[in-house]
């Protein structure tokens, strides 16, 4: 028997069905539970299920005792195949169909005709019917499978040019969804490295993170569209629960690293690739952003510490630096490698232990691991409440260089690095 908050009704229904348990017993209490007093929570327990209108505890007791004979175990029917084609229709009607089926990001798309999809497929050596990967909106759902052709369909819809297709396939194959269902309103960030950047005309300079480059814009958009469609949907209240949503999700913050102007090793080289390889790196989260101009001589340490303290302690910082700012960090802190900058950040992103452990996300995701002895969290848990402890793990802190040197602005994005995937493998 399970108790859930009422806003998750559709999620609970679909997840239990997908796991072969449509007969699972559950009841609902009002959202939120978080932050309520004992008296308020007792009122939930004593009260009624906001969806059924029946007493919560009556449903609980019935859930535990009502015989299962009437349940339809073994009678589950589920559409096992997805048709290759949508029904032929006029252009206007197809646009309407795609919009109404929630297959778009609500912006106009390019219709994926046979001709356009074939043109996309011509830019990879992989066969259309080859399985390209699996995706799901969270780890509690079963992953959906998709082929190279299905990725091409979504790439066309996003308006991507065929030469971008290996990057889009690499993203699709990653297993990392850009449409996570989390209530925290995640988005992805995509960083492209290596020769592919110039080959397809990506922007790593002025305006690289803004809507001024076709490859940056449509590769990122394709990643979002393929994520939602190839994982079986991303629908608010059903398979997407981001309470506020996240504008970064429109194109997954997709840009190329400015390797030429960076004073440091390219990001993909830090992660096991050669400089001559082409690769794409994926970060998720991307909820918090801090920014400033320059790295000031007198108080730069304090300024950076202030920015870091403004981040939620559960979202590690990735420094996204204009080349001017990257070089200033070298001047100020002698950080002639990214690793030295990261080490400094690790040592200076500190917080009193009492404050750290009181963060809700730390309570949800870190505290349980600490109490069962997982390091470094267990050691942090032994700290006195006023003792300063690291906010982040060192290997969760990253830096990338992007920008056109029109000024030394830079940002910290709160996000979690997931993986770096070969683009060359999908050529």
């Amino acid at each position, binding site marked *: 028997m399970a108790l859930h908050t009422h806003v998750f009704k559709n999620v609970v229904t679909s997840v239990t069905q997908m796991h072969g348990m449509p007969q699972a017993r559950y009841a609902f209490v009002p959202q939120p539970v978080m932050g309520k007093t004992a008296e308020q929570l007792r009122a939930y327990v004593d009260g009624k299920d906001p969806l059924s209108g029946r007493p919560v505890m009556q449903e609980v007791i019935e859930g535990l005792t009502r015989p299962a004979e009437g349940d339809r175990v073994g009678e589950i029917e*589920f559409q096992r195949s997805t048709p290759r084609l949508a029904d032929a229709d006029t*252009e206007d009607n197809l646009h309407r169909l795609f919009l109404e089926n929630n297959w778009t990001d609500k912006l106009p798309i390019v219709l994926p005709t046979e001709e356009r999809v074939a043109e996309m497929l011509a830019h990879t050596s992989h066969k259309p019917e080859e399985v390209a990967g699996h995706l799901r909106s969270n780890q509690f759902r079963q992953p959906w499978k998709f082929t190279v*052709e299905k990725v091409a369909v979504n790439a066309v819809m996003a308006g991507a040019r065929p030469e971008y297709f290996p990057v889009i396939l690499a993203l699709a194959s990653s297993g990392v969804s850009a449409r996570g269902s989390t209530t925290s309103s995640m988005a992805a960030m995509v960083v492209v490295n290596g020769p592919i950047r110039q080959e397809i005309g990506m922007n790593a300079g002025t305006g690289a993170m803004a809507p001024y480059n076709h490859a940056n814009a449509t590769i990122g958009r394709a990643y979002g569209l393929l994520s939602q469609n190839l994982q079986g949907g991303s629908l608010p209240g059903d398979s997407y629960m981001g309470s506020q949503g996240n504008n970064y999700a429109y194109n997954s913050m997709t840009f190329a690293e400015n390797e030429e102007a960076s004073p440091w090793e390219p990001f993909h080289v830090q992660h096991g690739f050669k400089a001559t390889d082409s690769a794409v790196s994926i970060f998720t989260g991307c909820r918090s952003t801090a920014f400033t101009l320059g790295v000031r001589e007198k108080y730069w340490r304090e300024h950076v510490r202030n920015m870091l303290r403004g981040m939620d302690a559960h979202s590690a910082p990735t420094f996204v630096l204009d080349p001017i700012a990257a070089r200033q960090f070298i001047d100020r802190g002698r950080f002639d490698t990214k690793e030295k900058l990261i080490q400094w950040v690790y040592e200076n992103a500190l917080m009193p232990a009492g404050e750290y452990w009181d963060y809700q996300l730390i309570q*949800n995701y870190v505290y349980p691991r600490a109490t069962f002895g997982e390091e470094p969290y267990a050691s942090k848990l032994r700290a006195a409440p006023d003792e300063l402890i690291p906010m982040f793990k060192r290997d969760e802190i990253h830096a990338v260089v992007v920008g056109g040197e029109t000024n030394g602005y830079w940002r910290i994005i709160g996000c979690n690095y997931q993986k770096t995937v070969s683009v060359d493998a999908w050529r």
Partner: protein
Amino acid sequence: MPNEAYGSQKIPALNPVGFPPKITPKPMAPRLDSLDGKTLYLVDPRFDDSGLFLRQVQGWFADHMPSVTTKLVEMSSVYTKDDPKTWEMIKANGDGAIIGVGH
């Protein structure tokens, strides 16, 4: 990309949706005849103050069904990790379980 120029002509378009996973039906555990004298585990997934909520469920049983023994247990780690040890312990020592509050 070719321009959109199909007008009222009916054209086929490819479906962008992936292929769903196979569903394997799972039977439920047998239901209890009654809760009298039974032991129920209240399983805290340690998410968004769920433990505080389950303590109120525990209080409800104490007030209304005192013959039921309730044991509040926390999952062994974060809710995102399966916890077979806890499930086995409940199977061995309990008659039923309530998990909550979940998202």
